[in-house]
């Protein structure tokens, strides 16, 4: 009931401008999506200017982290360890509304909600993550509906379901992971997942196999480090095939259809190609390839719709920039800085940001890739600054840093 009351107030406010019922505020920023991008933006706007009202619209009760979720698949951590609630944002004065944004009216500066209300904004942040283009893989929707084929590329119920399938698979079975063409969410993610499941098989069902069918010609991230780990740790268990794009899937024969052959497996984990999340498509924010949203990297403002800032995996990535949690968190800081500047009558200035992505290759050992991204006025985008690189070798020390990164970024984004 409280939420409905709030929305009524918000609806009334949309006609009146930026006045609110309580203390006078500078303006209202609405954030759609409570992932790494949206949550961080909501928190940092409040941190940097507490006179701005921030409303976060999120459909789920909890944040569930994609990073570290591959360890759940390996059996090395649990769902509760990768989940956080939104109470930390409320402590920063963010109004968290559990609802779904179904439409954006950029002319009226208003967001319509699934529950029927509407909410007005001065600036809108859309951090919708990804959705899948299921039609690219023939038979996918039927296969998914049967419950036998999963993507588990959004952490949550599918993560739990995939772990159950792996546990139920008899020893000697084949787990197939189908990887879509880049760009996709989390470039090293598939290879970490293959490693985690190979580690589980090695321990619990050593006659089983992990078969990676990659649409890309080769491992797209940290290739040398992953391949070294696979040949050292999982010989005879993990097999990798490049240029193996899934064009179809059949849950009745339990096979993945490649361009030239069908491959049978016992657990089919097919990750379809992605595009920006549905609300970005509905709002006309997609500018590139029918998939991604181009932005001004000084402000994260959409190049298609004024007053709307797009963050995270949904963006048309700048050169050498991965779709990662670290990047979404940093996109949010660019947007927060720019929006605070704009609402205070200042010209936004570019912000230098950092990416760091850890991947586990065994229960305790991890590898890493890092880069610094700096505004280039000549090229009009963010470019990789000097430096950056990958781990010298896989190590438990990197594993400790990986867990530090996870705990810290969850707190930096949500607490």
């Amino acid at each position, binding site marked *: 009931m409280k939420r409905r009351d709030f929305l009524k107030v918000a609806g009334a406010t949309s006609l009146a401008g930026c006045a609110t019922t309580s203390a006078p505020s500078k303006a209202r920023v609405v954030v759609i999506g409570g992932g790494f991008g949206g949550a961080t933006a909501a928190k940092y706007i409040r941190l940097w200017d507490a006179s701005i009202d921030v409303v976060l619209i999120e459909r789920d009760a909890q944040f569930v982290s994609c990073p570290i979720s591959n360890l759940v698949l390996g059996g090395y951590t649990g769902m509760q360890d990768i989940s956080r609630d939104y109470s930390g944002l409320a402590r920063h004065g963010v109004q968290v509304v559990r609802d779904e944004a179904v439409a954006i009216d950029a002319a009226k500066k208003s967001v319509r909600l699934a529950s029927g209300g509407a909410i007005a904004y001065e600036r809108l942040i859309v951090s919708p993550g990804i959705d899948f283009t299921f039609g690219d893989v023939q038979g996918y929707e039927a296969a998914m509906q049967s419950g036998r084929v999963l993507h588990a590329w959004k952490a949550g119920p599918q993560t739990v379901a995939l772990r159950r399938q792996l546990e139920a698979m008899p020893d000697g079975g084949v787990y197939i992971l189908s990887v879509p063409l880049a760009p996709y969410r989390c470039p090293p993610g598939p290879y970490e997942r293959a490693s985690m499941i190979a580690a589980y098989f090695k321990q619990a069902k050593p006659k089983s196999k992990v078969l990676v069918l990659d649409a890309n010609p080769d491992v797209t991230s940290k290739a040398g480090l992953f391949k070294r780990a696979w040949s050292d740790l999982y010989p005879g268990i993990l097999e990798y095939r490049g240029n193996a794009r899934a064009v179809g899937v059949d849950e009745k024969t339990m096979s993945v259809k490649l361009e030239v052959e069908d491959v049978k497996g016992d657990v089919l984990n097919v990750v379809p190609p992605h595009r920006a999340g549905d609300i970005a498509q509905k709002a006309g924010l997609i500018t590139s390839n029918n998939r991604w949203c181009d932005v001004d990297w000084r402000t994260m403002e959409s190049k298609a719709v004024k007053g709307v800032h797009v963050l995270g995996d949904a963006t048309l990535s700048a050169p050498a920039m991965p779709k990662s949690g670290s990047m979404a968190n940093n996109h949010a800081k660019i947007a927060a800085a720019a929006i605070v500047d704009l609402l205070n*009558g*200042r010209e936004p200035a570019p912000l230098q940001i950092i990416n760091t992505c850890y991947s586990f290759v065994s229960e305790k050992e991890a590898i890493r890739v890092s880069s610094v991204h700096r505004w280039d006025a000549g090229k009009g985008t963010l470019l990789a600054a000097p430096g*950056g690189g990958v781990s010298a070798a896989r190590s438990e020390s990197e594993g400790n840093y990986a867990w*530090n990164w996870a*705990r810290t*970024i969850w707190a930096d984004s949500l607490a």
Partner: protein
Amino acid sequence: MLRIALAALACIALQAYAQDRPRQLASACGICHGTDGRGDGKVLPPLAGMPRDQIASQMRAFRDGQRPATVMHQIAKGYTDEQIDALAAFFAAQKR
């Protein structure tokens, strides 16, 4: 009248702007070191409240290859002397 008020506001805003930049630059470090350098301290020493000279000299040592590291030798190369000094001053001024 309104114009004078706006001009005054712009003046205050410009000062705030100059002060805000190091905090915004430092926010990128938050993914591993915590918001405003206040991480949980379990794996990495908190940057918040660390002496300014120590932060600046270590960043330069990472950057110039004098201090070995798993990651900071790569990240520090992306920062200028001016940026390193701004970050050091900002983190040193934060309460733990």
